[in-house]
C-alpha cells in the first residue's frame, strides 16, 4: 500500500455493530481501538493489548456469511458491517489438586477431568481458537494420556475460553491443557541438576566472601571490575568455561 492510499483509508469510517449497536469507526483500527475511538473505556475485555493475556476473546459475523468467526479484539481489524461481542469471561470448572502429590502420568488428566471422554470430535474448539492451536488434537492426546503431547500442542494457549464456549461436550480444554503443561514440566522433564547445586552452594556461603567484597568496592574500582569482566562469547557452547575461575 502506498503512503497516500493508506492516508485515505485512515479517514475512512465504516459501521460496526458492537452488541448490536452501530458505531462509525476508522477501518484501519483493531476492534479494541475502534471501540475506544467510539467512546468506550474498557473495564473488562481488555488486558495486555498485545495478544497474550486472553482478556479480549471476540466472536463476530460479517455481512453475507453465516460463519461465526473468532479473534482477539486487540489483534483483529474491524470489517465493515461486522457484528461483534467480546467475551471477557467464560465459566469453566477447574480441578483443585496438590501438584506435589501428582506423578505426571496420563491417568491423572482423566481422573481430574473425567469429562474429557465426552469429546465428540466435532472440531469446534479448534475452529474457535484465536491462537490457531489444534485443540481437538490435544484433547485426543489427553484422552490417550499423552501428557507431553498435550503440553507441547497447547503451549501457545492464552486461556481465553473460546474453545470452552463452543464445546458441545462442555469441556474446559484450557484447564486440562495447563494441568498437562505443569505435569510435563514438573514430572516429565528431568530437573536441572545445576540449579540444585547452585542453590546448595549459595546456601553454604560459597560466594559470600566475593560478593561482600565487591559490595564494598569503591566506585572507580568497581567500574574497572565491570569493564574487565570476561564476556562469554555469543557462539560459545555449554562447555565454555571462563579463563578466570576465581568467582565461579
Amino acid at each position, binding site marked *: 500500500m502506498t503512503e497516500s492510499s493508506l492516508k485515505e483509508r*485512515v479517514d475512512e469510517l465504516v459501521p460496526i455493530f458492537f452488541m448490536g449497536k452501530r458505531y462509525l469507526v476508522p477501518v484501519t483500527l483493531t476492534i479494541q481501538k475502534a471501540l475506544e475511538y467510539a467512546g468506550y473505556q474498557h473495564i473488562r475485555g481488555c488486558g495486555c493489548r498485545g495478544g*497474550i493475556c486472553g482478556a479480549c476473546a471476540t466472536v463476530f459475523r460479517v455481512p453475507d456469511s453465516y460463519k461465526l468467526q473468532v479473534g482477539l479484539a486487540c489483534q483483529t481489524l474491524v470489517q465493515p458491517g461486522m457484528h461483534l461481542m467480546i467475551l471477557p469471561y467464560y465459566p469453566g470448572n477447574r480441578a*483443585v489438586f496438590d*501438584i506435589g502429590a501428582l506423578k505426571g502420568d496420563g491417568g491423572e488428566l482423566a481422573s481430574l477431568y473425567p469429562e474429557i471422554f465426552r469429546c465428540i470430535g466435532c472440531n469446534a474448539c479448534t475452529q474457535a481458537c484465536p491462537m490457531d492451536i489444534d485443540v481437538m488434537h490435544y484433547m485426543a492426546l489427553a484422552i490417550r494420556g499423552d501428557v507431553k503431547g498435550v503440553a507441547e500442542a497447547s503451549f501457545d494457549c492464552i486461556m481465553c475460553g473460546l474453545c470452552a464456549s463452543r464445546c458441545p461436550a462442555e469441556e474446559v480444554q484450557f484447564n486440562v491443557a495447563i494441568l498437562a*503443561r505443569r505435569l510435563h*514440566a514438573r514430572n516429565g*522433564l528431568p530437573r536441572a541438576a545445576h540449579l*540444585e547445586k547452585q542453590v546448595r552452594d549459595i546456601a553454604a556461603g560459597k*560466594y559470600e566472601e566475593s560478593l561482600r567484597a565487591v559490595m564494598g568496592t569503591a566506585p572507580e574500582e568497581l567500574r574497572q571490575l565491570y569493564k574487565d569482566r570476561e564476556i562469554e562469547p555469543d557462539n560459545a557452547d555449554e562447555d565454555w568455561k571462563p579463563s578466570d575461575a576465581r568467582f565461579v
Partner: protein
Amino acid sequence: MPYPENFAELIARVERTRPARVEQKKNGQEFPALKLEERAPVLRSYHPDFIENTRREISVGPSRGYAISNELVDLLEARSRVNPDLVDLSAPAIETDVLVIGAGGAGTAAALLAAENGARVLIATKLRHGDANTMMAEGGIQAADKVGTDSPYFHYLDVLGGGHFNNDPELVYTMVTEAPDAIRWLEGLGANFSKFPDGTMKTMHGGGTSRKRMHYAADITGAEIMRTIRDEARNHRDRIEVLEFSPAVEVVLDENGRCCGALLYNLETFEYLLVRAKAVVIATGGSGRLHMQKFMTTNHYGATADGIVIGYRAGVPVCFLHTVQYHPTGVVFPEQAEGILITEKFRGAGANVLNIHGEQFVFEREPRDVEAACIIRECEPAGRNNGILTPTGKHGVWLDSPMIEQLKGEGTVRREFPGKHILFRRFGIDISLEPMLIYPTLHYQNGGLEINSRCETKVPGLYAAGEVAGGVHGENRLMGNSLLDVIVFGRIAGLSAAEFARTADDPGKPSLDHVRRYNEEVETAGKDQGRIAPMILPDYSNPDVRGRQLTKERFGTLS
C-alpha cells in the same frame, strides 16, 4: 498489513548485507560495543530521560523536591479519588491477614508465600488475576546457576553496570543470591522452561550480561510463569481469595501510622469497600500507560502507577523514578501493533539492528538505555537521519530476524518466537523471511517505592514488591531481571507480610487522616488543579466523544 510495496527495495538492502553479517557472527566478530565512557554522551544527547522540561520537582509528600517525569508528578500533585469524610471506616467489608494489592507476578508470588506461611490472603486487583506486565514479559529470567561458568558475583556486577552503579547494593545482593532458588521454585510448580534433554536449562545472553544466564520459555516466558503461578494460587482457594476489578484507591493507616488495610473500589458496582488487614503488600506494577513524553508503550492496560500514588500518600518515599526505561525494540509497523514489545531475545539470538542502508550502527546487545539512545540517534533528523519512514510518518530501524534462521537453523524463528511469529503473520508479515521495523517504546519503571531487602517500606505493615518498588535496578534495568525481581521480591514480601501479620499486635482503628493531610498539602502548595489520582484506567476515547461526556472522570468520581 504487509509492508508497503515501496519497502521492497529497502528490505533488499538488508538482504544484500545479510550474508556477510551472518558470516561475521559465525566467526565471533561483533559490531564494537560502546566503551563505558562512550555511553554517557549518547545517553545525554538522545535518551528521552535527558530531554529538557520533561521533569519537575514533586512539591508535596515524603520525596518533596525530587524531580521526576511530569506525568508522574501530575499524579502525585493530585487529590484523592475519595472524600475521607464520606467513607465509613467502622465496618470493614472484608477482614484478612495479608492484603495483596495487584495480581501480577509479584502479587501472586507474595500471595502464595504468605499463604504457605499460614496467612489468610486477599488479592485485590484492578483487572483480572494475571492481567499484568508479567504476562507480557517475553525474553527471559536471569539467574546465575551454571556452576563453574557463572555466579551471583558476575550477576551482581552486570546488574550494577546496567544500573550505572547507583543500585541499592543490598537489594541487588538479595536478588542475585535468591535467583537460582526462584527458578527452582518455578520449575517445581511446573513452569516449562526451555531445557536440554538432560534437564539442563537453556540459557542465552541479554543486553549487558557477561554470561548466558537468561532462562526462557520460548518467547512467552512471562506468560508461562504468570499462568503457572496463577494456576497454583487457584489450588489454594481456601487460603487465597481473589477480588477482581477492585483496585485499591487508598491504603488505610491506624492512629500509630501503621498500615492496616486499604479502600477498594468496585469498578462494576461503584462501591468503595474497606478491607482490614494485618499487613498489606503493594504489587501494582508500573506506569507505562502514563505515556511519558507521548511515547508508545509495551505496557499492560492497567499500568497507571496506582500503587506509587497510594503508597506515597501513606508516607513511603520514592527513588529512581527519574529514569524511565525505553525498550529499544517496539513494533512501529504495522500501526495496529504499535508499541508492542519485540523481545530482546531476538538480539540475544543474533539478530542485527540495521539502518535504512541495511548497515549496522550499534552492537545489538548494549544495555537497554544505550541501545535505545543509539536507535533514536540513528533515526532523528537532527541525529544521523538514517531511519526508515513508515506510511503514517513514524520512523524506525530494522531488526533482522531472518538472519536467526541462518545462524541457528531453519525453523528457529517459528520455534523460538511463536508469539511474535503469529502476531506478525496476522498482518501478513513472515518474520522468518522479512525483518521487523522497530523503534524504542516506553517499557519499564526503573524506580518506585523505597523498600529494604525484606520488602518493608517506611510505613510499618506496608510492603512493596516488583515494578512498583525501586532500587534494585538502579537507573536502568537489564533484560531478564524484572521477572526475577517480581518472583524474588514477591516471595520475600509475602513471607515478610505473613510473619508480620502473625507476630505483630493487632492494628488500631483504620483512618484516612493521611489522605486528608495530603489533600491539604496539595492545596497549600498551590497545586490543586482539580486532578485526582490514582488514575485507575487510561482513557483512549475519541476527543469528540470525550467532549460530549460532560463528566470529569470516567470511573469513580466522588464529590
